């Protein structure tokens, strides 16, 4: 039905994660999430606070890869914890592995933490993010390697882990998981991951085949929305070099 690129659909699926967030720090990490965050700020959440990916809060909304012309504030790495622990932030991280309750691993693959099969980044800020502020995930390669029955190391905590903690986890909230195939959420009675929508050209079966655990799937899974012509014009302005297409290919 459409000749909109998959990367464009993904960018707006990310943007829609930040709808209704109001005045918080939207902190998407990675090229396509940053693009989605800036789209949200430009199109429907003007009060979103964002960084340049470094130490500055941006006063304008520059294209991907460009420095802001207007600097609105100072938010060096150390200040980020003040924001995280205060809860006024919605982060979108990546994941090496994720399970049905949203437990996420970016530290290492393999059963032996002293000698991993593959050393990844490390825990980074995932434990602190997920216990303190709303968190979403961006996964550009939806596969059974990433969507697993059980993650090797829990860095970002999922709903089952949070439930065991009681009141101490009262700020835990996983919003959505956006992938190159679909949008998922945890809006089920026991917070199991649910298929929220499939991107144009993707079937429910495609998503099921690429997922290593059983998803909650409603009777009628809608299609992820396609951006309007006006929205696409803003997208083009924010990513004139098409960096998004390097991360997500095809239509």
């Amino acid at each position, binding site marked *: 039905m459409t000749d909109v690129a998959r990367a464009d659909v993904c960018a707006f699926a990310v943007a829609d994660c930040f709808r209704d967030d109001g005045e918080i720090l939207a902190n998407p990490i990675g090229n396509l999430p940053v693009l989605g965050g800036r789209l949200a700020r430009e199109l429907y959440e003007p009060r979103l606070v964002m960084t340049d990916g*470094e*130490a*500055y809060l941006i006063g304008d909304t520059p294209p991907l890869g460009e420095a802001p012309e207007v600097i609105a504030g*100072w938010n*060096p*790495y*150390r200040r980020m*914890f003040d924001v*995280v*622990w205060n809860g006024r932030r919605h982060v979108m991280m990546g994941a090496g592995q994720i399970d049905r309750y949203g437990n996420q691993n970016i*530290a*290492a693959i393999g059963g032996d*933490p*002293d*000698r*991993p*099969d*593959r*050393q*990844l*980044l*490390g*825990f*980074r*800020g*995932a*434990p*602190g993010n*997920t*216990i*303190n502020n709303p968190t979403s995930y961006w996964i550009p390669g939806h596969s059974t390697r990433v969507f697993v029955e059980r993650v090797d*190391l*829990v*860095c*970002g*905590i999922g709903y089952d*882990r*949070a439930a*065991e*903690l*009681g*009141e*101490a*986890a*009262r*700020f*835990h909230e996983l919003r959505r998981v956006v992938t190159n195939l679909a949008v998922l959420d945890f809006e089920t009675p026991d917070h199991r991951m649910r298929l929220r929508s499939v991107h144009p050209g993707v079937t429910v079966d495609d998503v099921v085949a690429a997922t290593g655990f059983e998803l909650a799937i409603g009777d009628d899974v809608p299609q992820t929305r396609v951006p309007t012509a006006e929205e696409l014009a803003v997208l083009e302005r924010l990513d004139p070099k098409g960096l998004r297409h390097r991360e997500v290919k095809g239509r």
Partner: protein
Amino acid sequence: MSEADVVSRLTDGMTVGIGGWGSRRKPMSVVREICRSPLRDLTVVSYGGPDVGMLCAAGKVREVVFAFVSLDTIPLEPYFRRARESGAVAARQMDEGMMLLGLQAAAWRVPFLPTRVGLGSDLPRIDPGLRTVTSPYPGPGGTHEELVAVPALHLDAAIVHVNQADEHGNGQLLGPDPYFDDLFLEAAGRRFVSCERIVPTAGLTASGPVQSIRVTSLMVDGVVEAPGGAHPTSCVPDYPRDEAFQRDYAASAKDPDGWARFRKEWIDGLDERAYQERVQR
């Protein structure tokens, strides 16, 4: 003092904190000198970049205390990966914010700081020494929360690199991000600062606002003048990261003898001046 003077004040088995962040403003001239030295069995505490990778590759490290190790534009540090995947170095993994709290506790000389960070994650499972405390105060829901007690992260020594300093150790950061350098110094027993240039004290406020003097002489035992000393990491605004050098460094890890070649070309037999001259060529 010189890089060699710093290394002469380190001993085997020490816990050494290294400032900077990822592949940014790392005290690499001192790291290179450690690689040349007979030092061994170090515990390295770092928001890690090539400092961690090189020290691991050079066989200087027993344990790394880290939340991440990255070259920024190259997400994974190849020599660190190799050291971890071969089991050559032990690891104490942390959340980035836990490391901040551990350093802050050491700096304040309290045994721990409480936090929610780490609850529910696998950090307590893989770090059996990590303890929790029960809040003496009821939460808004009426329960007494069980919080993580991040232990003080005492450093035997800390090394950071700044843009400029005076001879007393008042250090100035002219880039936008101070990272955690002052905390590393405050958490350490022996404190060393390398800098792009040593200036008269009056030159500090002439170069930037007083808030940019993040490091005071109270935190510093020795100053090394090391122009280009953060290479190949960035030291903005003095210079950006040397991306080409970093790419070659990372690519060398693909060969079994890659580290031997790298250290022959860039570490062994060179002093810092000779290194900088070779970089300029």
